[in-house]
């Protein structure tokens, strides 16, 4: 994706203003051409809605999916369902210049049939949060703002990282995304934040980004922190009362933090800071 971006900016030769028509390859590998700067946008991804607003595109949003809830002004916009239960008629009625979707869900065909330009932009890895921000900036002619946002985000993240890098002890941690149990590998987007927060993820990278793991592994690894579940649930699991995190009551269920961590968007530094404060409270006194 980065390559595509650099290539197109080199071809167009413009540093700030996007020149249209703009052709780019989206996350589904489709070539999409925008004839002019989009003025009416519908977003189907909460993280994309946040990014669009953070780079000065909030005024262009005319509709969002039902999960988009930040910043507050997007909650007043018409809702168009979600990726899996979209309200196509509602989207068409909003007469958008462009609809931003994920690579999941099957929105491309029905919207394209309705004559609407669709582009899939869904950040998944840590680095993609930044590269997709730039792409969104390019799409809506707010490239300078997008670059500024990325610089600001990287700066805020570095501030936390400088603190946690010097932490004397790095506690081990287990982050559960659902009680089946599925967890996050160190290279996943949440896994990267966990490491940057000064924790050591007990999950080996070889298992992939979102592996279903054996509870034996968690008991054996004896993590000092557990995220994504509550203490009562952890205690109820066979053998888990021997895990240091459970013994010391360091099982952290923070719905607000979990939600921040599930949004690969502009609030990434906030999510990291929240995580770091839990793992290293001594550094934030």
């Amino acid at each position, binding site marked *: 994706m980065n390559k595509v971006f650099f290539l197109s900016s080199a071809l167009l030769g413009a540093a700030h203003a996007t020149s249209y028509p703009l052709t780019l390859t989206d996350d589904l590998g489709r070539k999409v051409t925008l004839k002019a700067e989009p003025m009416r946008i519908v977003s189907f991804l909460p993280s994309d809605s946040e990014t669009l607003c953070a780079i000065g595109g909030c005024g262009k949003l005319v509709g969002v999916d039902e999960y988009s809830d930040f910043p507050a002004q997007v909650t007043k916009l018409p809702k168009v369902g979600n990726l899996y239960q979209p309200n196509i008629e509602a989207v068409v009625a909003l007469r958008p210049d462009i609809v931003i979707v994920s690579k999941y869900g099957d929105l491309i065909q029905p919207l394209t049939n309705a004559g609407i330009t669709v582009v899939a932009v869904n950040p998944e890895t840590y680095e993609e949060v930044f590269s997709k921000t730039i792409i969104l900036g390019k799409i809506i002619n707010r490239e300078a703002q997008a670059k500024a946002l990325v610089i600001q985000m990287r700066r805020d993240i570095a501030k936390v990282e400088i603190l946690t890098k010097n932490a004397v002890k790095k506690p081990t941690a287990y982050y559960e995304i*659902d009680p089946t149990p599925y967890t996050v590998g160190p290279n996943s987007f949440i896994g990267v934040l966990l490491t940057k927060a000064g924790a050591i993820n007990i999950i080996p990278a070889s298992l992939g980004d979102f592996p279903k793991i054996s*509870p*034996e592994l968690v008991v*054996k690894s004896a993590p000092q922190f557990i995220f994504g579940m509550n203490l009562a649930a952890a205690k109820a699991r*066979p053998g888990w009362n*021997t895990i240091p995190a459970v013994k010391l009551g360091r099982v952290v269920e923070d719905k607000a933090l979990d939600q921040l961590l599930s949004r690969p968007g502009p609030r990434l530094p906030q999510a990291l800071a929240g995580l770091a404060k839990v793992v290293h409270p001594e550094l934030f006194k």
Partner: protein
Amino acid sequence: MSAAITVSRRLALISLPTLLLLAAALVTALLAVGLGSVPISPAETLQAIRHGLSGAELSGNDVIVWQLRLPRVALGFLVGAALAVSGGAFQAVFRNPLADPYLMGVASGAGLGATLVIALGLTTLWLPLFALSGALLSVFIALAIAREGGRLPPARLILAGVVVGSILTAFTTYLLLQSEDRIRQVFAFTLGNLAFAGWPQVGRLLPYVLIGGGVLLLLSKALNTLQLGDLTARSLGLPVERLRLLVIIAASLCTAGAVSYAGIIGFVGLVTPHLVRRLWGADYRVLLPVSAVAGGTLLVLSDLLARTLTRPAELPVGVVTTLLGGPFFLYLLRRQKT
């Protein structure tokens, strides 16, 4: 006649297949306790079991062997046994080889119960209670609808069960679409999950299996008679309708208990009685107890593979039971033909 059955039954139970099955059960249990996502030596495993039995304070690998692996094997065996016995009993009362433990909407009811817990955001501690209630509720609705006068005709029962099951599944799907971030959890339930088996769960499931399974074993002679057809069975003095009702309730109790602690595990209950029938014959007094051992072994083996093939990651156990049992079943089916 009854003397002849007794002799052949004894012969069937001490045959070579029985000895092989018992050996397989023992070897599987030993392997399942010894192997897992965390490598633990046999000496350490034995020591852990000693520590566990003595009630000493457990630490390190002791915890894994005694509190995670052993109960997981025990629960797996109980669930497999419960499903296989219920499957055999359902096939007997419906005289239909395609009957399985989930026939009366048991699985759909349990699935809806589990989905409710997850969709309402309740703690998963409620899951067994809701799954059990859902399973039993669907069975009773199907029974009430299928009842025709004082009778329970098998064809009506199957139809009622299938439709009640479909309706409940539609509810489940609707609930899931309303809370799509939890789909994976419900999905995992529908593939079966033994990951969080502990001694308390084993203790709570045991009564269902003992009572439900016990009733079925006691009725096995009557099930044999039922194979002669409703008319003949009735003329031999068998209370066919009451028997059918009792078997359905006992088998559903067994299955519902298993589903509520291990999720929906496919194939064990359908395939095990067939395999047993091919090797031991169709006498239900042999078929049901042998199915229990075989079903338990099959599930423990499947779970062992589920947690070791990709360790320390895990596969859903239902996927393994189907991949293991399915081809074997097809092979037997094919061989029988030629």
